[in-house]
């Protein structure tokens, strides 16, 4: 992995609308801060190499190297990445009922992991008004308070940095694919430190097609409604093509074609829909908004799911072939779109040593993705 510093991060990411505001660089040092969904560099830093660049999911993201380090295999561009099992899931009876999105699988897994002590603290994403706000949660009961879809990027990883600094050694994280990719970069020990310790013990990734720019969304919604009345929002699975804004006694539907222009370039070059570098990935099950799709990727993830099943925190069943096929197509399409866009923007596979690249994917994988149907 090529390592650079804050100046290159500014040039390659912040100044090119590639920063999604995941928070990976926030809180490592005093130079990067996130406010209302946007990350800013407060002062110039002169270091030639820094964690900010090393952890950024939009800077020199070399998927082949990441795959070798994470899974021990080359990156092949398969639609769903490496996994052990895919299933349908929802929260079990033991999970206290709360207002969670879809099947409550994520909340249930995190609450269970906290309860068993697998993790001491969980980095989750809450919301203040329309602004997603990361939180560190240490009790299983608090997990559900963060359960809801955000649709805008959140500086969740800033809280991971904070938790690490505070000395937590077994941290759980719920993150979007970009956040999970950042975490994968940092877990690969990019600086080759001898005393490297991974403070994360569980990474749950969310499915994500795109996120919205927080400030642009607020500006857009403000022009339509009184945003102080918003209680929640949802984008039902295709083919509905709408965003539903819940204002308590009233619901407002906004066509997705109005919303799509608020998707930053950053999401348009993202090749990952299912959080391929997580222990467990979770999304909504197409056609059944009360259920989740659950992808188990690691041995650790598999053990946790099995224990949660045993303890009544999860209920699972086999995923229908058609659902799995659709999931593959959707994930492959995101890859295809991302590669196309990254290429157009000159952000893919630039010659090593000559020009930096947001994304590096082996040529064979690129071809496979482009040719996939």
């Amino acid at each position, binding site marked *: 992995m090529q390592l650079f510093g804050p100046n290159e991060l500014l040039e390659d990411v912040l100044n090119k609308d590639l920063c999604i505001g995941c928070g990976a660089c926030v809180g490592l040092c005093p130079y990067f801060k996130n406010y209302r969904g946007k990350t*800013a560099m407060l002062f110039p830093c002169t*270091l030639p190499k820094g964690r900010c660049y090393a952890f950024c999911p939009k800077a020199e993201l070399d998927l082949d190297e990441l795959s070798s380090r994470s899974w021990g295999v080359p990156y092949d561009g398969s639609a769903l990445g490496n996994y052990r099992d895919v299933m349908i899931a929802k929260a079990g009876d033991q999970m206290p009922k709360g207002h969670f999105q879809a099947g409550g699988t994520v909340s249930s897994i995190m609450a269970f992991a906290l309860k068993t002590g697998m993790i001491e603290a969980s980095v989750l994403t809450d919301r203040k008004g329309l602004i997603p706000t990361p939180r560190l949660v240490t009790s299983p009961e608090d997990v559900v308070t963060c359960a809801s879809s955000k649709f805008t990027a959140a500086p969740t990883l800033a809280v991971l940095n904070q938790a690490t600094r505070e000395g937590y050694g077994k941290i759980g994280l719920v993150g979007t694919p970009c956040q999970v990719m950042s975490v994968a970069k940092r877990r690969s020990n990019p600086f080759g430190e001898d005393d490297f310790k991974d403070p994360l013990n569980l990474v749950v990734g969310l499915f994500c097609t795109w996120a919205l720019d927080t400030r642009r969304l607020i500006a857009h919604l403000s022009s339509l409604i009184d945003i102080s009345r918003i209680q929640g929002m949802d984008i039902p699975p295709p083919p509905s093509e709408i965003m539903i804004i819940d204002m308590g006694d009233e619901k407002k539907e906004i066509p997705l074609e109005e919303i799509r222009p608020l998707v930053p370039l950053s999401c348009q070059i993202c090749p990952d829909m299912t959080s391929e570098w997580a222990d467990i990935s979770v999304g909504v099950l197409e056609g059944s908004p009360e259920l989740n799709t659950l992808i188990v990727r690691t041995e650790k993830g598999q053990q946790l799911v099995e224990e949660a099943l045993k303890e009544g925190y999860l209920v699972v069943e086999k995923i229908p072939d058609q659902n799995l096929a659709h999931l593959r197509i959707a994930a492959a399409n995101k890859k295809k779109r991302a590669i196309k866009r990254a290429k157009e923007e000159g952000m893919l596979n630039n010659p090593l040593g000559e020009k930096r690249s947001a994304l590096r994917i082996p040529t064979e994988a690129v071809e496979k993705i482009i040719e996939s149907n």
Partner: protein
Amino acid sequence: MSYIIEGQKGTRHLLMGNEAIARGALEAGISVAAGYPGTPSSEIIENLAKVSKKEQIYVEWSVNEKVAMEVAAAASFAGLRSLCVMKQNGVNVASDFLLHLAGSGTRGGMVLVPCDDPGALSSINEGESRHFARLVEIPLLEPGDFQEAKDITKWAFELSEEIRSLVMVRSVTRLSHASGNVVFGGLPKKKARPYFKHDGFILDPMEGVVISAPVDYKHGQQHEKLQKAIALFEDSPFNTYSGPENPELLIITSSASHFYSKEAIQLIGGQDRIGLLKMGTTWPIPPNLMEEHLSRTEKILIVEEVIPFLEESVKILAAELAPKIGIKTFFGKRNGFIPMVGELNPDLVVAALSRILEIDYEAVPEDYSKRAEELTLVGAPNRELTFCPGCPHRASFWSIHNVLEMDNRKGFVCGDIGCYSMAVLPCGFGTLKTLHAMGSGTGVASGFGKLTQFGMDQAVLSVCGDSTFFHATMPALVNAVHHKSNITLVILDNSGTAMTGFQPHPGLPVDAGGNDVPIVDIPSVCRAIGAKVKISDPFDLQETQETLLELLQEEGVKVLVLKQICALSPEKKGKKKYKMSVDINVCLGENCGCNRLCTRIFKCPGLVWDKEKGAARIDEVICAGCGVCASICPSGAIEKKEAA
């Protein structure tokens, strides 16, 4: 008690030019002095304030220069002698009243002393006040040494009463702030009782209405006054000539340039070839005197700073006198013999003399200058202008800068005049993006704040100090509120006119003479104007930043008052609130996670980078103990303990 009133008549004293001017005003028997602080003028009012009780004079630091001139004018209208003092650009502020006062005329002797700052040593302009004398048509006097600073000031009051007009006595930094010997005259005992007579014949200058109309009548009177002044100037002892009867070259000069010219003639050994006419009465120039001196020679060099004011006046007269004196060859600013920009010095005058007279003279050998320059680069540490240790402005701009970056809309701050003007520099993190006159920051911001309707979405801020707020920010704030502009004004209230030496202002409970006076409360004024007001301690970085971020999200005019007393304030008496220390085991130094934030970016002079230890260190001698650096350290290596 100031020594400017302690010396007996006829005794000799070493006085700063500004002290000599104050002494001159006292010898003239002034009753009222008013001004607004501004380098290099401030010591005149300060010295008068110190003796105000003993000498029974009224001295005030007015809210701005225009009001100062109005306050002084009232004394004149009531028959008393009054003095009005300001720096060069203060005259611009006062100029509207100045124009009308020149037209209406004065009664008791009234003198305006502007102190100009050629080379802008303590200014952001090289403004000239002299042209105001010509513009509004009042006599102009320029002292050429320290004795004259006193004597001309005293005489200016006599001239003012002789012609019933305001008289300008102009000083410059090198006269105001340098010192020389002055022989004292006596101090008068009796003071007149003020009475404003206004019920006489309406056009009577001493008993009627004080007004500049009817304009043609009053303007005509003004010209008669100037003719009287010219007649007095013809024989003035303040215009002196030294040198051969018919020199090869005649230097005409005034003010501090007199020193440089005298020295240059000596340096070049030109005493037998060069004549020196020092003018003390520089507008209007007396024509007979000029005829006499211009007739001495064919070549004339005019030596003066900034605008070719004297040069133009002399050339106009020379054109008029041409049938008598013939055609002369002039050297000066207009043909590049004297620089148009910056302060003069003897070397620059020598350079002009050696060119004109073809004398080989090298003030500084070229290889010496070159070598000196090389050595400076390697030998002298680069010392930037910076805020003092413990200065609240450093903390304020840290917060403003960080908030603007976090806000991430390429917002900016319209700056204003004060120590905080330095925030255009790295010491203020380059936060200020416009900088003009007193109060202009908020006026300019008020305009920027109306551009949202055209799609501008940058955050617009302005700053001003507490004294500047009263001086000229208030009207701009009213304008912004009334026109629904979207701006945030940050008032950097350090409890005094700090830059010029802690002169009081209406926000403080004491006046120039040390009397108790009521406070005009800045937040209350802003609220009354209709702005949303928040107050924060700039040393509390977190609260300040949160408050400012919140304000930036709101529409309309918002004011954040950042209140923290100046680190150099006499009230603080150098006392440290905290004892600071650095734990070098915790300091991250140059590593990722810090990269010397405190010594590379925050750069308080009280913090030192210890190269050998690879850690920051507190310079105990200059640390003011404000504690702010403890809040910026990302690893908590900087510790603060309540000082004993």
